[in-house]
């Protein structure tokens, strides 16, 4: 199995990307994830399964519920994982620099 290609295929779907964003903030049960979507629950479950299979998500049994959390380790293997984070800071600092250029040292 070409795992790398599978990761990109997994990321190509908007619902799966939305699931990753949801789980970037906290781990959640399958039910809680599904409640964020209008899609039928079995469809969401299938998306979760695909994300877990290519290791973008980790599954953990917690009582009767299956909990999901993101696998940052796997995401790092995708090129440019850190780039959006760097870009966010770069934009912020560019703005700071542009604004401060209007000021003069006292």
């Amino acid at each position, binding site marked *: 199995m070409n795992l790398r290609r599978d990761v990109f295929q997994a990321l190509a779907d908007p619902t799966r990307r939305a699931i990753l*964003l949801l789980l*970037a903030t906290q781990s959640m049960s399958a039910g809680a994830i599904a409640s964020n979507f209008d899609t039928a629950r079995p469809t969401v479950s299938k998306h979760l399964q695909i994300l877990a299979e290519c290791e973008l998500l980790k599954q953990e049994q917690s009582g009767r519920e299956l909990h999901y959390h*993101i696998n940052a*380790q796997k995401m790092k293997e995708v090129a440019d*994982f*850190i780039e959006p984070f760097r870009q966010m800071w770069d934009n912020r600092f560019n703005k700071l620099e542009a604004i*401060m250029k209007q000021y003069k040292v006292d």
Partner: protein
Amino acid sequence: MELKTKISAEDGKQEIRISREFDLPLELLFRAYSEAAIVEQWMGTKVIKLENKNHGSWQFATTDPAGNVHGFHGVIHEFAPNQKITRTFEMENTPFPVQLEFLEFEKLTNDTSKLSMQIVYKSVEDRDRMLALPFAKGLNMAHNRLQEIANHLI
């Protein structure tokens, strides 16, 4: 060309290092962090409180495009003008725990300066989630429904 903003996040560590060289004299770079009216401009936030002193505290409120207000606050552990700020940072009403930030300001030349930030998270997992957030957010730019959640966090 070398990137102006650099990020270092070693595997298995609960910290991120961010550095940036500015075409600004050290004094101006520091003012961007110490003067409330200037902080409001570049951070796009409202400064409710900014006590620039040892054992001071700060509080910001940011309104997102949808009109929701998000609070941020922390304490200023150490404040040394034109040298360093050591502070905590916490986003209110999110699952992210408080983080510790060390900011060091450095003069390079009369017209250039450098900021080095070290951000320490509660756990490696918290650090990784923070790194993953802009990545996941970027993937979802078109996805309006969850965009709202991301706006609460960045």
